[in-house]
């Protein structure tokens, strides 16, 4: 049986008249798709190796390169597409599980793009955010059922610990091991500058990042990597990870080759051993068990910080969320099926889970119906792309949004989806010291601050446009949304009126 031939997915077009033989493309390509021929004095592309990350094109000083879709194409077929053929071939060759990086790229409907925002016209005039104060500050945590005031007017009710964010966006969980320390540091530094939070994911917290603890949410995931008392103490909040949008129902996997000295120390596992997180948390088999863990963590940290739970958006997430709120969680993070990952089986990434828009609407409605919406803050993520998505999410009922893919794109990611190889040419999804140095934390943090700074301005504009001057007034305010191109059942679940009504 001959070896399968797959036409190169990308073609590398080089303008020979502009190529100055600087070899930057060669030294920057981590996939060996560029090679300098000494004898002929020219750069030659190995197109079969090109993954379309565009690193070479971006850095070429004369703009001599163009990476475009491969020139060799299969006959068009709506069912047996190019993607399906490639996947089948690879499996026939290797007999393995197809792996992908980042979030699902399948053309499922994006419900954010079916939702539109309101704006004031005559009554309830619009507010100019450049001239009027506009509050984006957000608190995450458990709210009491009622507030009691003391005779002197001060608050008598003791409040549960809250996270304070200056804008309703946080950096979502990305593990140290999936990314490298430079990216971790950039996220942490940006979180400090923006006065929001970042999340360790299941990689633990590197020693050098403890200083950023007050702006870090630490995760207690199924592998319990890096979980010890100092870790919990350093954090601003704790997040128990039950699931992740990109791969609901399965655990995580960091190959042994990537577990170097520093990662070994941080995750508390031996150097070179595979970091396998099991699918379930093996001491949580019921909602009561979850309650035990939540309170164990609260006890261990003297009830000083919020303890939340992260779940993947799946079919029964409304009921699950209700249980989690009653179990004592202070916030619930829901990760939609578009969420990113360093590595996940392609079939799971592309076929398991539900869109965050529905999960959010369903959970928010259910908690309100049960009269317990105040007991948890809702944080949603999984493909949040822009400030408009954030505003719509909040209108649907979210307290804040988590972003990760958007943050990595801001740092340079071009979604070539080769993360599992550990050869990320942008130096993001790799711990190879040659590549990891390509992310200068100072530069990356600046870009993240720019990104969310821009989003904050846009959110203020959109709020102002609606005549709202505090994000609190938009929260769960579904009347400020209208939908287009959706059916009745969808409208029903989202709790949104169709445009025109």
């Amino acid at each position: 049986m001959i070896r399968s031939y797959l036409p190169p997915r990308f073609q590398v077009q080089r303008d020979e008249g502009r190529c100055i033989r600087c070899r930057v493309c060669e030294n920057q390509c981590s996939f060996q798709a560029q090679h300098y021929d000494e004898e002929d004095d020219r750069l030659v592309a190995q197109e079969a190796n090109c993954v379309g990350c565009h690193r070479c094109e971006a850095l070429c000083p004369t703009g001599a390169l163009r990476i475009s879709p491969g020139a060799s194409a299969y006959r068009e077929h709506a069912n047996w597409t190019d993607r399906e053929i490639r996947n089948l071939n690879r499996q026939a060759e290797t007999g393995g599980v197809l792996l992908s990086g980042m979030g699902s790229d399948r053309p499922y409907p994006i419900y954010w793009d079916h939702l539109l925002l309101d704006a004031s016209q005559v009554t309830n005039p619009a507010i100019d955010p450049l001239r009027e104060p506009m509050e984006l500050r957000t608190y995450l945590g458990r709210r009491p059922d009622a507030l009691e005031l003391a005779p002197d007017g001060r608050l008598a009710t003791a409040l549960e610990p809250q996270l304070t964010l200056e804008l309703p966006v946080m950096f979502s969980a990305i593990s140290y091991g999936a990314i490298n320390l430079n990216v971790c540091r950039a996220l942490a530094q940006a979180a400090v500058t923006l006065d929001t939070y970042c999340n360790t994911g299941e990689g633990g917290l590197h020693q050098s990042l403890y200083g950023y603890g007050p702006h870090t949410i630490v995760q207690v995931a199924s592998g319990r990597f890096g979980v010890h008392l100092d870790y919990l103490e350093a954090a601003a909040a704790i997040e128990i990870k039950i699931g992740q949008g990109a791969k609901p129902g399965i655990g995580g996997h960091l190959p042994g080759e990537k577990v170097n000295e520093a990662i070994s120390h941080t995750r508390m596992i031996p150097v070179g051993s595979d970091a396998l997180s099991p699918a379930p948390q093996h001491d949580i088999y019921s909602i009561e068990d979850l309650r035990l863990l939540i309170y164990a963590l609260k006890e261990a940290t003297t009830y000083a910080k919020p303890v939340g739970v992260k779940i993947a958006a799946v079919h029964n997430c409304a009921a699950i969320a209700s249980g989690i709120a009653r179990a004592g969680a202070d916030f619930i993070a829901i990760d939609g099926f578009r969420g990113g990952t360093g590595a996940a089986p392609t079939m799971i990434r592309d076929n398991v889970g539900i869109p965050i828009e529905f999960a959010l609407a369903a959970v928010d409605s259910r908690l309100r119906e049960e009269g317990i919406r105040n007991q948890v803050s809702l944080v949603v993520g999984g493909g949040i792309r822009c400030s408009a998505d954030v505003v719509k999410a909040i209108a649907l009922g979210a307290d804040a949004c988590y972003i990760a893919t958007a943050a990595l794109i801001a740092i340079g990611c071009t979604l070539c989806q080769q993360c599992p190889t550990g050869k990320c040419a942008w130096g993001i999804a790799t711990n190879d010291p040659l590549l990891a140095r390509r992310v200068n934390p100072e530069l990356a943090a600046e870009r993240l601050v720019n990104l969310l700074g821009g989003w904050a301005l846009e959110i203020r504009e959109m709020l102002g446009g609606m005549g709202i001057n505090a994000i609190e007034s938009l929260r769960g305010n579904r009347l400020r949304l209208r939908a287009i191109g959706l059916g009745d059942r969808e409208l029903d679940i989202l709790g949104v009126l169709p445009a025109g009504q």
Partner: protein
Amino acid sequence: MPAIAADEEYCMGCRLCEIACMAQRSGISDLAKALRPGRPRPQPGTRVETEGVRAVSISCRHCQQAPCLLACLTGAMQRTQDGRVVVDRDRCAGCGTCVLVCPYGAVAISPERKVASKCDLCPGWEQPACVAACPNRALRVVEESP
């Protein structure tokens, strides 16, 4: 004395600093034309050393007590009003004494013109070409007193 500081932690060894320096020295604004193969290239004022995964771009520190200036046989190595150490290429005899004494290895004898060549901090430009070209902010202008 200003000089260019190189951060070895974030240097990727891409050598875009060298490219930018050569392009700037060529006096031609189109980089593809300036460095076209076959056309003689100016010697860059900064040079990247690489060793394994590490790399760093080394350029003249414009030392206060510049060994090259003191040792120069013809007095071609001079200090400008604003404190930079520069080579008067017309006076330079290419003897290599500056290369012999520079503890940073920051001076080179250009193979084309056989005269000393080194960083001159891009006078008249808003930012040194290498600093502007570095994609990872591994180069910055600093005020130093070496």
